[in-house]
């Protein structure tokens, strides 16, 4: 319960006009801080769901498949340059961003990840990280400005940030793969 309140409080804080203006004026903060934070708060909220609700959701989310699909689809949308622009241009899209990132990305992912099998997780990691890296590389290398609301330099920084964070995550995943040894090779 307390986690749910904390998450809603942080979302409300992020929604303050002053805060939004700060975070959205730089593309890299918009993409790599605000959006992940909103999704993260949704994940936190989901852990505070009463067990009864969680179990009825589980019936529709066998092995976490449908929840993962939902999170994958909704998060991909918010990587489209036009979607970023639209959140800045239209209040309705901004509201949609603040609602869908916690509810359709963070929450379903948190309810699904632990139930997704090893293959599902591997599939997600192996797809999402290269996708980020490619989007980042495109933003760095593209000769065109993809967002009407951001300067070219901002696009380049955001692209470099995406590229760097996807590499960092890939390294982290790699380290984990080394660390957690399968039981068969135990001493």
């Amino acid at each position, binding site marked *: 319960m307390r986690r749910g309140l904390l998450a809603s409080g942080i979302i409300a804080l992020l929604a303050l006009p002053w805060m939004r203006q700060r975070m959205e004026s730089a593309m890299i903060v918009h993409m790599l801080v605000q959006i992940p934070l909103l999704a993260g708060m949704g994940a936190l909220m989901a852990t505070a769901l009463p067990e009864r609700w969680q179990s009825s959701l589980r019936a529709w989310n066998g092995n976490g498949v449908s929840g993962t699909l939902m999170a994958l689809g909704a998060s991909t949308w918010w990587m489209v*340059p*036009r979607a970023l622009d639209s959140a800045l241009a239209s209040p309705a899209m901004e509201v949609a961003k603040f609602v869908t990132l916690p509810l359709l990305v963070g929450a379903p992912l948190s309810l699904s990840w632990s139930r997704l099998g090893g293959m599902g997780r591997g599939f997600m990691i192996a797809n999402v990280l290269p996708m980020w890296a490619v989007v980042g590389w495109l933003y760095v290398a593209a000769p065109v400005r*993809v967002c009407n609301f951001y300067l070219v330099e901002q696009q380049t920084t955001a692209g470099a940030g995406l590229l760097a964070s996807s590499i960092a995550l890939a390294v982290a995943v790699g380290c984990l793969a080394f660390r957690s040894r399968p039981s068969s090779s135990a001493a």
Partner: protein
Amino acid sequence: MRSVPWMRTAVASLVICAAGGALAWRGTDGFRAFTTEQARRLAIARRPRALPVVALDDQNGQPFTLASYRGAPLAVDFIYTQCVSVCTRLSASFERLDRAERARAAGGGNRLRLVTITFDPRDTPEQLRAYASRYRADGRDWRFARVHDARELPSLLGAFGITVIPDGRGDFQHNAAVHVVDAEGRLARVLDIDADPRDVVRTLAESRR
């Protein structure tokens, strides 16, 4: 009854994919517009847009409006005179077009007229004149204009779909394109900087007949 939970998940997944696909289709105009600029071009091509009547002053300080060009198509672009990047490409493209159209008019044809509008409130008629001479424009068939009342600039830019952001160092970033206004005075097409608007003008003229 082990198949029941599996069925529900399958149904949920299908619904998610269908809804997500439908939303993505709508949100990207059938997977054709992933950027605001592509979306603007598609929307305008599909439904030509009426333009507000905004008082302009040309490089000689003469007042006029885009509506005064009605009856013949017109190509419009947006620049600022201090620009050293994309505007120079745009103006070079207009210069090529101007030269070709001048030759055509000399042969007795109707030429396509051009208007270049600055969105920089600092640009004066003198600067516009200097800019015009840099691209060897005659100032009649290719005119250079600023908005008479700066408060009307946002509505003009909004109607065309031009977003201008100051970069804080005295320069601007803006979407650059060639805008074709049809004989009815509507914004009918938005083209790449280097595209030749005359093909579009011909198509528009044919569709009118």
